């Protein structure tokens, strides 16, 4: 890379930093000049998060910080707990946009899963699925049990309840973040065994965690609610949710493939309709729309000839989608809570990373994985996001007594994993040589459409 090019990029980053400062100044001026709680602030907040996240990612790139982490940091800095450029009301009002972003991420995730790649990595995936889910869940439950005397919400609980809560914490511990995985892969353009394995594992584990959660809910109910009988009702709900969602997703996938084949225009509007309207309808019908979109993407990719084009269209929106999703997630992070709970949260976070590393080494040995996967297979599994928070929210709703403390701790640990996970994964991809080599890191050319490792 020539020194002239480096100099030019340095100057460009300097200019962008000045523009970012100007934007922050403008928002601060607007905050002081306008009334709070009056007109909606969501539109300006949306634009600011998008711009500031994009610029911050570019400015922080030389430090090796992944774009996702930069988006999160932007959201945290701009959010209601720091600069207050984006207030609570605006964060709440941006929820539909988040649903839209997440639905696109799910569609992209499903479409990145190619049967041929899954088959080639089947052995690794099977061992990892077994060990990363079952062993890590048990280990994390053990860690929780060991730490329970120092956890404020768990200390006063009787042992049987703590045991049940520990198992639920184990389930939270095995959730991963498809959005973070896809975001890092989209930025790095990585391809290779590590990228393929991580993507396939993270996407499939989303479904498996939902099943495990239903099992654990059923098993722990008698422990958590003295007098409650063992009931298989959770499995009935699970059947409705999982089987129904996969069936609906397959149908949607076929419809999307037909639309691409016979109409093929204005896909952005179709995505908007899916993300804004269909998510609401499916939520109301109690289907898992994330699973539906993953299944739909998978069907378009593997049962039609439209997969590449489909991915290309979603990728076109990627730059907007990831920034909004992660910057809003950053603004959502409860920083005072994190400051309050950080010692226990740090212990749980480090334990989880350790358990994930150990399980990865073990499953890699059993599956006879390639060296890159043996060494770095764990790094892509640290990120956590929405699913963990969703499970914590569900537990809070069903067990209001200790649920609030449980959810707060989950938020704190997810925040840490959310910040550190993408950095670890990007480092792993860089070190294992799977990151695409760009001539100009500021202006990466889009990876070929349909590249499964994007």
């Amino acid at each position, binding site marked *: 890379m020539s020194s002239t090019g480096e100099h030019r990029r340095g100057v460009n980053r300097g200019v962008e930093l000045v523009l970012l400062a100007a934007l922050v100044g403008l928002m601060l001026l607007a905050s002081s000049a306008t009334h709070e709680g009056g007109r909606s602030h969501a539109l300006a*907040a949306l634009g600011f998060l*998008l*711009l500031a996240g994009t610029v911050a990612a570019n400015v922080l790139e030389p430090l090796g910080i992944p774009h996702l982490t930069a988006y999160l940091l932007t959201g945290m800095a701009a959010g209601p707990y720091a600069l207050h450029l984006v207030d609570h009301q605006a964060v709440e009002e941006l929820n539909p946009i988040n649903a839209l972003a997440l639905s696109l991420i799910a569609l992209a995730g499903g479409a990145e899963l190619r049967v041929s790649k899954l088959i080639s990595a089947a052995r690794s995936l099977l061992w990892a699925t077994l060990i990363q889910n079952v062993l890590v869940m048990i280990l994390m439950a053990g860690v929780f049990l060991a730490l329970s005397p120092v956890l404020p919400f768990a200390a006063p609980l009787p042992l049987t309840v703590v045991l049940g809560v520990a198992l639920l914490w184990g389930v939270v511990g095995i959730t991963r973040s498809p959005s973070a995985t896809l975001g890092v892969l989209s930025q790095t353009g990585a391809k290779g065994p590590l990228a393929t394995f991580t993507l396939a594992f993270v996407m499939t584990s989303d479904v498996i965690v939902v099943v495990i959660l239903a099992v654990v809910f059923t098993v722990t109910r008698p422990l958590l609610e003295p007098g409650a009988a063992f009931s298989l009702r959770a499995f009935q709900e699970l059947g409705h949710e999982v089987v129904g969602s996969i069936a609906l997703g397959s149908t949607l996938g076929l419809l999307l493939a037909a639309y691409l084949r016979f109409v093929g225009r204005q896909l952005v509007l179709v995505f908007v309709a899916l993300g804004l309207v269909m998510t609401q309808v499916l939520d109301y019908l109690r289907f898992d729309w994330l699973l539906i979109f993953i299944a739909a993407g998978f069907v378009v990719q593997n049962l039609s000839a439209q997969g590449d084009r489909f991915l290309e269209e979603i990728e076109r929106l990627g*730059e907007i989608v990831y920034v909004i999703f992660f910057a809003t997630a950053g603004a959502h992070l409860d920083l005072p809570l994190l400051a309050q709970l950080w010692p226990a949260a740090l212990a749980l976070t480090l334990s989880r990373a350790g358990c994930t590393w150990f399980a990865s080494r073990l499953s890699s040995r059993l599956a006879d994985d390639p060296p890159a996967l043996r060494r770095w297979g764990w790094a892509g599994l640290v990120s956590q996001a929405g699913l963990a928070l969703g499970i914590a929210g569900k537990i809070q709703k069903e067990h209001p007594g200790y649920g609030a403390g449980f959810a707060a701790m989950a938020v704190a640990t997810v925040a840490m994993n959310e910040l550190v996970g993408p950095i670890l994964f990007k480092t792993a991809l860089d070190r294992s040589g799977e990151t695409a080599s760009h001539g100009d890191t500021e202006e990466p050319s889009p990876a070929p459409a349909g590249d499964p490792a994007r």
Partner: protein
Amino acid sequence: MNALWALMGLIAAAFVGSVLVGRQRQTRHGLASGSEPVLAGFLIGPTMLGLVTPGLLEVFTPLAQVGLGWLALIVGLDYGWIDRRRIPTRRTVGGALAGLLTMAVVTAATFALLRRLQPTGPVWWQDTANWIEAGGIGAACAETTRHAVRWVADRLKARGPVTELLLDLADADDLGPFLACGALFTLQPPAGLRWAAHPGVLWAGQIALGVAIGFLTALLVSKRFRSRSLWGVLFGTSMVAIGLAVRADLAVLTVGFCMGLGLNAVSSHRHAIRAVVVPAEGPLRLPALLLAGARIDVAQVPFLAWVIPTVLGARIVAKGLVTGCAMLVSPPLRRAGAPLVPGLLACGPNSMSIGLAFALRFPGRIGDSVLVCAAATTLLGELISTAGLRAALRRAGEAAADTGSQPVVEVTA
């Protein structure tokens, strides 16, 4: 109808809009002004079928604001250009003056009428409410829509100095109304602002905000020019501009238009940006016009039987004056003759956008009056302007053929 169905309806409208206004080849259907959605909106709105309730319309206010802001941004970005041809400065100034003259005549006539109908009010120079109402009606009735001029020119395959001049004037007359909206919005102190400021300062502030964000966009785009990041940057900056205007109760149309002007003035990538942004006009215009149509409520407009004829009469007089002045300075126009007057009465999306912006900012009498007058002017233009334009272009000897109802035209991005 619940919010989800209504949202689906708007998305469907956007889809239809994108189909009707394609980037490559297309067959032009429908009305010359492109205002069919206004009628559709009026039919499903609270006044007629009641499928869309007033409460539901409130839910979509942010969407309407975004649509208005983006439409104004596109108009600003396109200002002074017809496809890749720059409009000569003389014509730009002439077009802008034509818009201002029309606006002034309609405003004056409406204000005089309102004062006469409500004689017990403050002294005339302090009668803010009537100034806002009359000014809003003037701004909404100022334009000659380029859509209608292009529609007729395409059908007649008209080429020549008169056609070109009409297209240029129709493009350039948008300046006055879009800037006037900002001024009128500041006459009533914006509720969203914590600081009191002179209306002149607020007006200048809106223009400065729009232009500054346009410059910021140009700088960001120049540093990272790729079609993918272009969308992100444009979307982000436009949301900041629109969002700040909404937050402070300022005119989204003025801020968006000035942002487009700023970007248009300084970006070396302006043609590429236009190629990306202008195709979004169709998908945005239809839902925005649909919402505008649904908001029309004639029952809320006092003295309707007086106001509408006065406004339409004043507009006809104003366009007559514009035609006379234009003929004085441009000899080729003299060949087109008197039919130019009804020809210049064409108006549509910009008028309805201004009407909708006033209805959102001044709910009640003022907003409803401006919106109803915008709709009435659009309807009048639709009825007589195409015949006028056809006759004018034929008389000027620039109509190659009358190709019937559905010619195929090329629209260059």
